[in-house]
Each structure stands twice: as C-alpha cells, then as structure tokens.
C-alpha cells in the first residue's frame, strides 16, 4: 500500500475493505463473507451502527486478501463507545452491538436509537421497518438569527480526550507489525459534513442542524459558517498535534473529511464557492499534516467532483475516495490521465449502484478488470468499491470482485 501511495506501481494492487466508515462493509455482507470463506461462526460486531457497518477482523481480512487496517473512532455516530458488546438480532441475523446501543421499536416497526445510549433523551436516529441503515432524526431548534452563536455548532468539536488518545494509541500499537497499511479517522476534521450536521451523537444539538437549512446557510449565513470552520480548524490542528505526539508516523493516511461536494449529475456548489468557503481550512489542516507528519491526507466526496479535483490537490489532499465513476464527468480513464500522478484513487474499483448489487458475477469481474487496467499502472490506486458494500449485495458478486483483483495481480487467495 505504501508503494501505491507513493505513486509507484506495487507488486499487486492494495485492497481495502473495512478500514474506514467510507470503505466499509454492511454487517450482513460481513456475515455472508465469513460464511462463504468458512471462518469461525460468530456474530459480527457492528462497529458503526449508523450505516450498520460490520467489523472486518483479521481472519476475514486474510481470507479476502486485504492490505489495510483501520484506526476506527472510539465512539459511534450515536455518541456511545463501540465497546462492551451485546447481542442483537438484525432482521434475523445475530450480531453484536455496543453496550450502549439502545433502541425502541415503534408500533409501525421503525427502530429508534438514542444518543449516547440515553433513553431519556430524544431519539437521534431512525431505521425504517425493513431498512438496513439508520438515518439521523433532524432536531432543529428554532433559529433566531440575532442569537445564532457559532459555539452552538461547535459543541462536538473540542480538545481530544485522554480516552480517545489512549484508544488511538492502543489501536495503532495493536496493528503495528501486522504488515498492513494503516488508515485512521481521528474525527473533528470534517468541515460541514452533511451526515454530521444533524449531530446524531448529541443529546440536544443547537445551532443549525437541519440538512436543508445548513445547505441554504452556505449561501445566506456564510459569515457564521466561516466562524465555525475557523474555530474548528484551530481545534483540529491542536488535536492532530496531540495525536501525532502519541503515535508519530505510525499511520499511513488520515481520513480527514467526508463532506460531499458532488451529486449524481452535478455539484453541491460552484468551484468558486468551494474555494471561498472550504479551501482555506482544508489547506491549513493539510499543510499542518504535511509539515509535521508523514501522514497522507484522505478526502472522501461522493458524486461528480472532477471540477474540484485540481482544488483538492492544491489544498493538499493526497487521496480521493470513493471515485464515483458512475457520476457525471467521472470517466475513469480521463481521471487517471489528468490526476493520476498527483492524486491516489482509493476506490473506483466497481460500481455499487448497479453492477455490484444487481449485476452478474461475470459483469462484476469484467468491470473490475477494466478498472484495474485503468487505475493500476504507475501506482496511486488502492482498490475499493465505490463507497461501502451495501446491504443486499450478493456475496457471489463480492467474491467475484475480490477474485478479479487477485486474478489481475496474478495471485491466488483463500
């Protein structure tokens, strides 16, 4: 993986599944893969209940032929630690969930989940009956523009706790010597990530927490958002410094921000808006990382983002994910030609909107081989599907995807 990140062609394409919350696997797929590879039968841990992502443990990582392990956040999106596991039945599948994963089933079958596991608080997430994921419940207090205080939108951004530092150090040390590449998510460095705006991890979120209101505020309350980003930037750099003091350069890359700038056919803002509102803060964080560490900066943004890639590079991002080739203007060969020597493509391996969930294993195989032919030459490619493997993806297709990568590399696994 390190060779690939240095834009040199490695002996085989590094493969990631499960190292971050944007390159993960739905718990039902993790269970199916464990079964497929004949691994010890045991309930899979749901390390991230928001997206119901299952933990990829060492035995599955080896069976799938993966090359990356992750420093996952200590706390989940619902604000409780991913620890003290207990049994839970998810649509007939026995899984393990964190001890503070507390839910209430509504009369219509919807499942509500509580922030910090506090059942006296208003629920902050809902999984509709028959669905496979939670979504944030919008809890927007009435907005009085005269009294809006950036501190209200900064509640979740503060000095990193000793518990978090211990968790990071422990995880890094445990993975040290494993030979795997290491991707880390340290939290707090995502500027205006729309998944985080509703703050499902807080009991009483204040400020602007409604998704549509936030988007509109990027036009109408730009000064307010600048003040949030400004302070968040200072806090995150202080936190990154403390983390680096603890773990040094032991991780290879840091997943810094998951704010989506692309839609399927267009963008969430113009390049000019991006450069005015986001670019200065990204650049400051990335510049600090590059000046003080050997970490590489990992940016996630779904959708049609070709127009932003030059700015991402200028802002100091080294890695782009998930490389949504199905979105407008995201043709893989063109991306590789224009940006391949300057940006690592961490994703783009196979389409997850159509081919992987609905195609045949042969169609999956053919698409994966085509993508590897485009992205692999010269390095700068870490294989991952385009975003997480979603619930309902046939295990045969996942295996066909992995086998195709291994076939491309000329190696045999499992």
């Amino acid at each position, binding site marked *: 993986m390190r060779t690939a990140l240095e834009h040199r062609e490695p002996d085989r394409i590094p493969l990631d599944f499960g190292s971050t919350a944007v390159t993960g696997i739905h718990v039902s797929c993790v269970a199916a893969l464990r079964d497929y590879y004949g691994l010890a039968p045991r309930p899979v841990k749901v390390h991230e209940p928001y997206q119901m992502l299952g933990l990829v443990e060492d035995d599955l990582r080896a069976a799938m032929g993966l090359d990356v392990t992750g420093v996952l956040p200590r706390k989940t999106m619902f604000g409780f630690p991913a620890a003290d596991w207990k049994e839970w039945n998810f649509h007939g599948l026995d899984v393990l969930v964190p001890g503070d994963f507390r839910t209430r089933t509504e009369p219509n079958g919807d499942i509500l989940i509580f922030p910090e596991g506090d059942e006296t608080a208003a629920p902050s997430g809902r999984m509709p009956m028959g669905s496979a994921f939670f979504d944030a419940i919008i809890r927007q207090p009435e907005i009085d523009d005269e009294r809006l205080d950036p501190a209200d939108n900064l509640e979740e951004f503060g000095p990193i706790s000793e518990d978090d530092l211990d968790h990071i150090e422990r995880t890094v040390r445990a993975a040290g010597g494993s030979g795997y590449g290491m991707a880390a998510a340290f939290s707090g460095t995502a500027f205006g990530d729309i998944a985080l705006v509703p703050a499902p991890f807080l009991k009483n979120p204040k400020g602007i927490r409604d998704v549509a209101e936030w*988007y509109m505020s990027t036009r109408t309350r730009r000064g307010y958002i600048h003040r949030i980003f400004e302070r968040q930037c200072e806090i995150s750099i202080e936190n990154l410094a403390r983390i680096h003091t603890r773990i040094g350069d032991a991780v290879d890359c840091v997943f810094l921000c998951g704010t989506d700038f692309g839609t399927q056919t*267009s963008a969430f803002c113009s390049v000019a808006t991006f450069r005015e509102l986001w670019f200065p803060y990204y650049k400051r964080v990335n510049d600090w990382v590059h000046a003080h560490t050997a970490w590489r900066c990992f940016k996630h943004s779904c959708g049609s983002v070709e127009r932003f890639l030059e700015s991402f590079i200028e802002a100091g991002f080294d890695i782009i994910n998930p490389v949504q080739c199905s979105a407008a203007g995201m043709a893989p060969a063109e991306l590789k030609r224009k940006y391949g020597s300057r940006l690592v493509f961490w994703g783009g391996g196979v389409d997850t909107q159509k081919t992987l969930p609905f195609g045949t294993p042969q169609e999956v195989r053919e698409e994966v081989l085509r993508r590897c032919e485009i992205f692999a030459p010269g390095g700068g490619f870490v294989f991952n599907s385009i975003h997480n493997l979603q619930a309902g993806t046939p295990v045969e297709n996942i295996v066909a995807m992995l086998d195709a990568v291994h076939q491309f590399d000329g190696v045999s696994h499992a």
Partner: protein
Amino acid sequence: MPDPVKLREAVIEGDWKTAAAVTQAAIAAGVAPLAIVTGYLVPAMDEVGRRFECEEYFVPEMLLSARAMKASMDIVRPLLAAAGAEPVGRVVIGTVKGDLHDIGKNLVASMLEGGGFEVIDLGADVAPERFIEAAAANSANLVALSALLTVTMTSMKTTIDAFQAAGLREKVKIMVGGAPVTQQFADAIGADGYGQSAGAAVAVARKLVAA
C-alpha cells in the same frame, strides 16, 4: 400598486420574505391568484430550473428559491382552491418505503408546484398503500417516486406493482427519480417517466399529463 415582477425576482433570488410580502400586496391590490402563479411563480421556477440545469445554481440556491416560492404559494393556494382553479395536474409524491432521504424529493415537489401542479407530498418512507390511497383520494393523475438508496430502489417496483394489483395503474402515470435511478431502471420496472434532475422532472411531468 405592488410590482409583481419583484415576486419573480424574489423567487429567483431566494428571498422568501420579499416573495411573501409582494404576494400579499398583489392579492390586496386585486391581482388574481391564478395570475400570480402563471404569470410570476411558474416563470420564476422555470428560470430557477434553467439555472440549475446550466449549473449557475446548485442545491443551496434551489432550496432558497423553493422556500421563496412556497412562501408565496402558501398565501395563494387557499385562494386558488376557493376559486376552483384547476392545476396543470395533480401529483402525489414521496420517497419510497424504507428510504428517509427527502431533499431531492422536496426539490422536485417544489419545482412541480412552481410548475403549476397541485402537489400532495407524502414525505419519506412511504408505503405503496399510502401512495395508492392518496392518489385515489385526490384524483391524482401523476405519482412521483423518489429513492436515494440502491436497497430501496426495489420499493419503486413494489409500488408500481401495487398500483397494478389495485387496478389503478391505468389511471395514473408514474414517474421515478433519485441518484441511483436510471432511464434503463425506470423502463425495467414499468415506470412511465424518469427525471434525471429536479428541473427535468417538471418537463417529464408536463409531458406525462399532456399525453
């Protein structure tokens, strides 16, 4: 005399307070409610759609314009109903069962309303039977289904099949949209129309109700 042209500008610029104030003033001055819709709101939202299509506008600007249009429509709508004005069409819209994503659906609903349609918005996570009940109760001639997730796209087919089973499939046109949805998928599940964007959805809807 108020200047209703300012209403068009207010909607395009996303200024809901001005949009509401100009609408109130226009009504007080005797401008016909239907003239406000057809003369100002529809052209304004057409312009917003055009700007979105050519990427002068993005989601935030669309949301602001939609809010301004709604502020005006909230004043005009009861008067239209009282006057018995007929909309371009009646559309029941919702995000399908299992899917809670509603920003795209809300934008399409606003664009349709701004396009002269009466919109019955059922929200998100809508079961097939609720679409059927609402379509029947409101004598809708159009049903618009939204999905963001690959795992909920299948609910679109379930909903279309439910209209068939209820014997109502021939009475309504059904259009679909959402990030993972394609024309090919729309054709495969037997939808009548597919809109790639909020602006395109209005053109599709107009074509379907005219057919």
